[in-house]
């Protein structure tokens, strides 16, 4: 489960590091590119809404949520048909010699359960990936949900100075150090 690693590593302990605030998206993108070029890949970037430029700069892989959506949907579909067919044969009601389990009406149940299980597993996947295994221990500022972009760089104490320098030259409006 390689895709689980990134977030669990970031949250294992409350990391020391630098938190920078940006009001300009291009400045934040510059800072992300510069940090990644220097080998800082464990960045946490806070935005008030999803932003494509920042996503591109971070070069994320596609979210694994889709896998759980697929699994949930297929499970629901199978469960819908399995339940209706099994229940029909469990207490057979033969009417006019017609098929005991007749698939066309069961499509409705199969379809509804596909959607139901697909949707619920999608939400469960998000809860798993971004809330439970999420961002506990990373610093937060209330302005990050308003109009400010935040970048948290986990690092060792001796690197605090150079990183602050880098962030300020990229255009950070505020930089603070976060103790472990």
């Amino acid at each position, binding site marked *: 489960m390689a895709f689980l690693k990134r977030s669990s590593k970031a949250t294992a302990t409350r990391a020391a590091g630098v938190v920078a605030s940006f009001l300009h998206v291009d400045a934040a993108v510059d800072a992300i590119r510069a940090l990644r070029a220097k080998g800082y890949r464990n960045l946490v970037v806070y935005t008030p809404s*999803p932003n494509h430029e920042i996503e591109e700069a971070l070069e994320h892989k596609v979210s694994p949520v889709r896998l759980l959506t697929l699994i949930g949907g297929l499970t629901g579909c199978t469960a819908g048909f399995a339940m209706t067919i099994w229940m029909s044969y469990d207490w057979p009601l033969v009417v006019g010699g017609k098929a005991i389990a007749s698939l066309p009406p069961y499509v409705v149940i199969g379809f509804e359960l596909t959607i139901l299980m697909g949707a619920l597993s999608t939400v469960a996947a998000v809860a798993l990936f971004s809330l439970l295994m999420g961002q506990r221990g990373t610093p937060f500022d209330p302005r990050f949900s308003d109009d400010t972009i935040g970048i948290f760089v986990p690092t060792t104490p001796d690197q605090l100075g150079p990183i602050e320098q880098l962030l300020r030259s990229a255009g950070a409006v505020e930089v603070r150090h976060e103790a472990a």
Partner: protein
Amino acid sequence: MAVVAQPHDAPEGHVINQTHAEVTRDVVATLGPPTRGYVLLLLGAVSLFLIGIATFLVLIKDGLGHAGYNPPVFWSVYITTFVFWVGIGHAGTLISAILFLFRSPWRTAVYRSTEAMTVFAVMTAGLFPIIHIGRQWIFYWLLPYPNERYLWPNFKSPLIWDVFAISTYLTVSTTFLVFGLIPDVAAVRDKVSGWRKSIYSWSSVGWKGTDNQWRHYSRAYLYLAALATPLVLSVHSVVSWDFAVGIVPGWHGTIFAPYFVAGAIYSGIGMVLTLIIPLRRALKIEHMIHSYHFDNLAKLTLLTGSILLYAYAMEYFVAWYSGNTFEQTTFYRRAFGPMWWAGWSMIICNAFVSQLLWFRKIRTNLTSLFVISIFINIGMWFERYVIIVSSLSNDYIPWAWDQMNPTWADWGILLGSFGWFGMWFLLFAKTFPIVAIQEIKEMIPMPRRRGGHG
């Protein structure tokens, strides 16, 4: 309510001339202390709801005899109102999911309120089958659960499909609404203080808006929209099959599914207009929901209203063309029989009133839109009433024909349902952001140091 101010009427009318901070501020302001008007509205809704509760208690005590059920009409106002409320729900999912997939930016300003409307409308609708079955305490017989007699539901029955369709729809639309709320609740959390902060902190489930959270969230939102899109089309199709699978004249038509889906969206947008025209004024969000959005909502109304016009015409044409006496009699009696007033209310309110929306002046005038939306609500309730009651009261043998007259118990429950729905909607509008903060922000370009729009 005159013509809306037109600062945003340019083709790119969805662009909002606000900064991110202003959006948060204005939406959080809608959650402030309730005004007098709001409290009065809420009291009104609760009173209506209490009328419904009182009626329901009498029904539980005495049985469904009060509800005017007499042979041959055993489906009447409760089933009518059930279909009415399910239909209302459809506009919300259309706007929040289908228009999301189609990348229609105008949906952003109105989708939260319509989605809340969906959830509460389906919650309301879900009560009606339970009221209608008469012995509410055994409603769970509808579900497939292991029991000592080894009996299972009949999955070939549209009524069981309906159980699955409605409960799935309620679950998925609630999920979609709550899921969309998470980042917005977090934005509110960071603006309020005291006990409100702790409540919003708890309900924002630790949302920080990190890149990792957005990465999963945006994907999941896309998949939820993709799952909700076929769902919304299926739910009202299944509801229509409650009728179309039965061999009752006036019901047994293949056009029922698309006809019902179009009607559902039409009625839903009617209800959206009825709700948000007063709401935007009460919550002072006129600059976020303005004539551009109403113009688009009105165009959707026009589209679905025209589909209804076509469907009504086809129903009459097919009844005549089929050469089937029973079908022909049913449709003749809808227009000229004892229920002519209901039949014409339906045709005029739905098929003809919506045609006024060809005129741009009417589409962008809020007073006229509000009046039209009331006609839509009335017309769509009558549509279901006509379909259900007129077909049942005059089916095959004239000897068995009889008229149905709604009683106080029918009206009491109908009023109660409006109270129940209104109560939830009003409470929601004061508790949660009724405009999607996060999605509006997504449409506003963030400021850049180097200027321009990258």
